[in-house]
């Protein structure tokens, strides 16, 4: 008969689960970076209230935040081929995306997803900067873009980092959704190892510890950036 809990098995399975860590990190990192770029562009569009684009950005944010991530990934991965299939049947064309590796779909889907969430965070941080700062930039004839780069954005970083770090950490864990499209990340790997050995509890603990370490490193790095970004602020005593 088995034990309720088998610590030795836990230790044994670490290396095997860790095999999939590069996949998780790669997907999380690349889609995180792309997501940040998307978020930056979208938040700027909303902040500057650029016509035509601003309402489109709103729809994008609403759709992405409003629908399950799982569905978005499936939509990108299975929907695009299905859509092409329908097109092909109708018009006799022969579009095909099977050459594209599935990891690309995963990254696209996750980046689009993370971008929507992060753009809202960035927008609110931009609005939190005192309007006098922007006025001062204009008064010395900076363009809005220059003002953002030199003055406004640096002041938003301290405010934006904690919620952005929420999004980035969520992203690392959301990476597990890629198993939906047959990519084996550490969560999928854990499920596979767990299924083989019938020890889900231990394996979930293993995977949690790995996630925790990764997330703690990311959170730590970001908190250092936060402290640096707030270096010019004045503290109130007690």
């Amino acid at each position, binding site marked *: 008969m*088995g034990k*309720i809990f088998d610590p030795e098995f836990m230790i044994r399975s670490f290396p095997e689960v860790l095999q999939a860590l590069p996949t998780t990190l790669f997907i999380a990192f690349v889609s995180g970076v792309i997501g940040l770029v998307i978020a930056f562009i979208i938040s700027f569009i909303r902040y500057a209230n650029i016509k035509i684009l601003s309402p489109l950005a709103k729809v994008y944010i609403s759709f992405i935040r409003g629908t399950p991530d*799982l569905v978005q990934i499936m939509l990108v991965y299975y929907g695009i081929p299905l859509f092409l299939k329908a097109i092909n049947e109708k018009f006799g064309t022969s579009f095909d995306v099977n050459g594209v590796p599935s990891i690309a779909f995963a990254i696209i889907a996750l980046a689009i997803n993370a971008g929507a969430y992060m753009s809202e965070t960035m927008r609110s941080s931009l609005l939190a900067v005192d309007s006098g700062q922007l006025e001062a930039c204009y008064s010395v004839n900076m363009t809005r873009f220059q003002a953002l780069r030199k003055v406004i954005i640096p002041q938003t970083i301290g405010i934006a980092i904690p919620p952005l770090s929420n999004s980035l950490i969520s992203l690392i864990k959301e990476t597990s959704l890629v198993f939906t499209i047959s990519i084996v990340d550490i969560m999928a790997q854990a499920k596979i190892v767990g299924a083989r050995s019938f020890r889900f509890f231990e394996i979930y603990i293993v995977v949690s510890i790995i996630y925790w370490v990764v997330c703690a490193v990311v959170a730590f790095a970001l908190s250092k950036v936060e402290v640096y970004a707030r270096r010019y602020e004045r503290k109130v005593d007690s």
Partner: protein
Amino acid sequence: NGAASTKKNTVKVTTVNVGTEGAYPPYNYVDKNGKADGYDIAVMRAVDKKVQSLKFNYVPTAWDSIFVALESGKFDIIASDLGKNPEREKKYLFSEQPYLYGSSQIIYKAGRTDIKSLKDLYGKTVAAGVGTNTTTALEHFNKENGNKIKIKYTDGNINNALQEIDSKRVDATISSIITTKLTAKKLGIKIDGTTAPELGISPIHLLFVKNDKGSKYQKLIDKALIELRKDGTLKKLSIKYLGKDYTTKESAE
């Protein structure tokens, strides 16, 4: 779709993606080296050897999206301990040959004596994994008998159902006896099981996408399955992976 063609001694070899859950031992799982294995896969490998023109590539995929992946052409065959039922047959193509007979049992906490058939479950709560064939059968039974059984859906994973039984949150589950016993043993959960007369024994098939390509594969593979049955390969594999011969209806009982 899913075809990267290479030439090998004048025979044109097509690579076919085969979907599998990869987390349902002993039927299908991924071994330590990252290779798919299990009874389902072993059968497919034997088929692979027989069918010159096809080469199989196994893709473990989350249960949630395994059918969606098939429909969208990400793979053309599913080998994942699947039984037939009318709904499935409407949408997909099955191998005419079953390669296994699954026997589902009613599983309950060891020591209980009050459950002998589905009728004994009236008024009781039964855990049922979403999307499995036994669940579909149970739903049918329940519908025909006035919905007297309380179905508590679970996330597919037998683990959850066993935990629920052990903590008495549910009375029973209906599931493949092989997997369940294995899991329960590992977890140290004591269970008993009864074959449910109402559910009987259900044949397990391979599943194909419902189009020309699918029926082409179906024909090729059916032929291979017949041969494998004849030469005793299926029986050998069943004993190797499942501990017993479940490849004929009689032996499975």
